[in-house]
């Protein structure tokens, strides 16, 4: 337990509570900063991909742009449309954001660096991310708007469909790791980048990440927003802070999917050079970079986030029936077949993953 001044003055029950709250703050504050700067990175990266500058006016190379945006959104008027269901209208963005943030409780940032080290971590994440749909559906219905309702319907059908493929991909991971605890899943991949689960689970990895893009309603699966078809989908009627809460939830979910992909398939905080570099090199100043640690985790997550932005700049939006076909007729059969293959591989003890 880390030493925190003045903590001993509190009664013991409150001490645990304070410690947990401090840990939550230590996770959520950097996360929200990441969300803010992810929006900046998105505009810059897509800008460069489309040969334009992106935001570069506020602060040096536009670095203060997210803060300016946040201030602008915070001071905008919050409009509740006539005929909207007031309570649910306000509740919807809150559900979205709380579902997006609560899944972070079980994410391991390093060995034993996790808020809640529970056995059923993987199940917990699946359950919490499935709660996010309610924000979208309730927003669509409570807005009392046809566009919003259409967006909510599309998004609900899409998220329910892709959740199945996602769940099956996770079944493959739990078979390979033999545990539902995310920390143990990472530890099962120890021993250099050849031991990571990407290699034996490559189809599941691809299915998982694409389903993750669909789950977060990002391009090319952003039919729930589809600005050229239904204005802005489920959050047409939202303005100011209530809109920005949806926005934060979407980006927090993007980061979550990237974190989970890197944790379950790319070995989380593990270094790819494990077992390849000698102990002397590890002791040298350069060695700490090559050793496993939080920086590898950040690097892998950043890679996946870059993929998100890259997809958005590259692919045109999927047609709705094609999304459904991809989810039900391609991804689910692929995952089912591959789960069987993994079962055989585990029974045969194929190394270096299953021996």
């Amino acid at each position, binding site marked *: 337990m880390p030493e925190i001044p003045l903590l001993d003055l509190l009664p013991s*029950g409150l001490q645990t509570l304070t410690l947990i709250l401090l840990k939550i703050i230590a996770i959520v504050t950097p996360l929200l900063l990441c969300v803010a700067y992810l929006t900046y990175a998105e505009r810059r990266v897509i800008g460069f991909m489309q040969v334009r500058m992106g935001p570069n006016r506020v602060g040096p190379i536009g670095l203060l742009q997210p803060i300016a945006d946040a201030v602008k959104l915070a001071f905008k008027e919050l409009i509740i449309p006539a005929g909207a269901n007031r309570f*649910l209208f306000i509740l919807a963005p809150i559900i979205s954001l709380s579902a997006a943030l609560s899944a972070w409780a079980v994410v391991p940032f390093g060995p034993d660096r996790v808020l809640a080290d*529970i*056995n*059923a971590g993987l*199940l*917990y994440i*699946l*359950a919490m991310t*499935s*709660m996010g*749909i*309610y924000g979208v*559906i*309730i927003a669509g*219905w409570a807005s009392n708007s046809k566009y919003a*309702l259409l967006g*909510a*319907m599309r998004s*609900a*059908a899409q*998220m*329910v469909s892709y*959740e199945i493929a996602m*769940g099956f991909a996770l079944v493959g991971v739990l078979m390979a790791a033999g545990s*539902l605890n995310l920390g143990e899943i990472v530890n099962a991949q120890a021993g250099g980048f050849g031991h990571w689960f990407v290699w034996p689970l490559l189809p599941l990895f691809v299915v998982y990440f694409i389903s993750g893009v669909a789950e977060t309603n990002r391009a090319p699966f952003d039919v729930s927003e589809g600005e050229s078809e239904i204005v802005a989908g489920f959050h047409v009627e939202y303005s100011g802070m209530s809109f920005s809460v949806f926005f934060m939830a979407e980006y927090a979910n993007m980061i979550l999917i990237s974190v989970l992909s890197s944790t379950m398939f790319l070995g989380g905080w593990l270094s790819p050079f494990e077992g390849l570099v000698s102990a002397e090199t590890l002791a040298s100043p350069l060695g700490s970079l090559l050793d496993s640690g939080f920086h590898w985790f950040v690097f892998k997550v950043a890679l996946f986030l870059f993929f998100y932005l890259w997809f958005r700049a590259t692919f045109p939006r999927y047609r709705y*029936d*094609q999304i459904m*076909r991809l989810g039900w007729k391609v991804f689910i059969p692929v995952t089912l077949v591959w789960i069987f293959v993994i079962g055989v591989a585990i029974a045969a003890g194929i190394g270096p993953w299953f021996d």
Partner: protein
Amino acid sequence: MVEQLVFYALSGILVFAGSMVVTVRNPIHAALFLVLSFFTTAGIWLLLDAEFLAMTLVLVYVGAVMVLFLFVIMMLDVNLVVLREGFSRYLPVGILIAVLLGLELSMVVGASQFGLDIVPAPAHHGAGYSNIEELGSVLYTVYVYPFEIASVLLLVAIVAAIALSLGEHRKNRKGQRPEEQVAVNRKDRVRLVQMAAERPDSDTP
């Protein structure tokens, strides 16, 4: 102490949400209260160390079943006035049935059958206890045949549902065939016609 507080808070919300499900006018609100009651039930199961059941309840019922429920309810054009017609006429019968049900329930699951002296409170397991492992090891050894039969039943249900939805309309079904859409050739669809830019003089009146 804390556990009891959590239990009473969760059960309070559960009873409240359950009674709201059957009393609120708006079907969407009723469905959302049902979601809330599922969620609190999951919380109570967590208190019993049944984390697998709790998570699956949230995952399956809250995350999938109720979403489809809401989906259908939002599409329906429910006329509330018609739904509430004759409420006072059926009220005595309804109350009678409710009282009967309540009596039966209290007889079956009351303290005389499920009191603490007959069924002792479940023991708490330590931090290393995994509910999922326990369930799995029982499910695939002792109860393997019931488990397999249940899964086969579900498979039959899936096949039946798909067969029903394909059904009699299989002949004139208007589904899309992506492989044909992808294999489309410009030559089969577009015919370029060469025309003179002006009409000959003889055509003009």
